[in-house]
């Protein structure tokens, strides 16, 4: 089975990711809508003043979780990812916003925030180093599958 393809399909089947950051040995977690590109990079938009955004500025190491809804007893599928995240600027930010718009629309208020008004928002990119797919459906004997990027 093609693990990379399964991860791409899984990323396409969900919209929400939990992003974990760390500052001063203390973890924090936030939820964002994300878009993946063909290289399995992940993009999201957040306000710069949010705690996860501030922590990424100080420490770019992040972890992500993408989990579609399960109820107890169902076969589990979920994705963990670790890597680095950064705020995109200039042409990279424009590209990131275009990737984001390929999946989601951006409301007027958010457009204004991206232009720096009110509480400014930015596009972020996570470059993964390692994905862990837990997949009891496709890999019942060995559900933990790792992909190094």
């Amino acid at each position, binding site marked *: 089975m093609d693990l990379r393809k399964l991860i791409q399909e899984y990323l396409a089947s969900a919209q929400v990711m*939990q992003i974990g950051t760390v500052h001063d040995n203390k*973890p*924090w*977690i936030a*939820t964002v809508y994300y878009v993946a590109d063909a290289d399995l990079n992940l993009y999201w938009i957040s306000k710069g003043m949010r705690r996860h955004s501030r922590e990424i500025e100080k420490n770019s190491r992040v972890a992500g979780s993408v989990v579609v*809804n399960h109820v107890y007893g169902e076969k589990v599928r979920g994705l963990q990812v*670790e890597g680095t995240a950064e705020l995109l600027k200039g042409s990279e930010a424009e590209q990131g916003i275009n990737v984001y718009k390929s999946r989601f629309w951006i409301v007027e208020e958010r457009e204004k925030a991206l232009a720096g008004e009110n509480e400014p928002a930015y596009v972020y990119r996570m470059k993964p180093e390692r994905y862990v797919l837990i997949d009891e459906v496709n890999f019942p004997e060995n559900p933990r599958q790792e992909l190094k990027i």
Partner: protein
Amino acid sequence: MDVKKLISEYFESAQMLQIITTNGYQPWGATVYFAYDQDLNLYWISRPDRRHSSELSLNKKVAGVIAKYHTYGEKVRGIQIEGEAFELKNEDASNAMEIYTKRYSVPRARALNLSGHIVYKLKPTYIVLFDEVNFPENPRQEYKP
């Protein structure tokens, strides 16, 4: 509106908790099924050899999210938690398993499924309820247990 009550109702309506642990610099995420008590402590069971479990044995600081499935554009509701998580033993573990097995209607032995799972407790120090449904003007509501 009673924020603690809303948090408790939200806990009741969800089953999955995402946790983030750290070795000090690199965060790591994991997903667990949780149960909770009236003081808003959360309980789950995990194998001790999992990365989140081994990180917790070295650093109790943890963050959690309980996020129900949304699609883009919907009003958002979710919970963020900060606190400490640790392994329970003896009577504490037994009491927690009572709560856990009651919630999921599973026999205790099956919940622990004979592969060495142990019981963890997350004691929150800070909870953020993000709730655009009940607090449209100010969706970020903070609660300190």
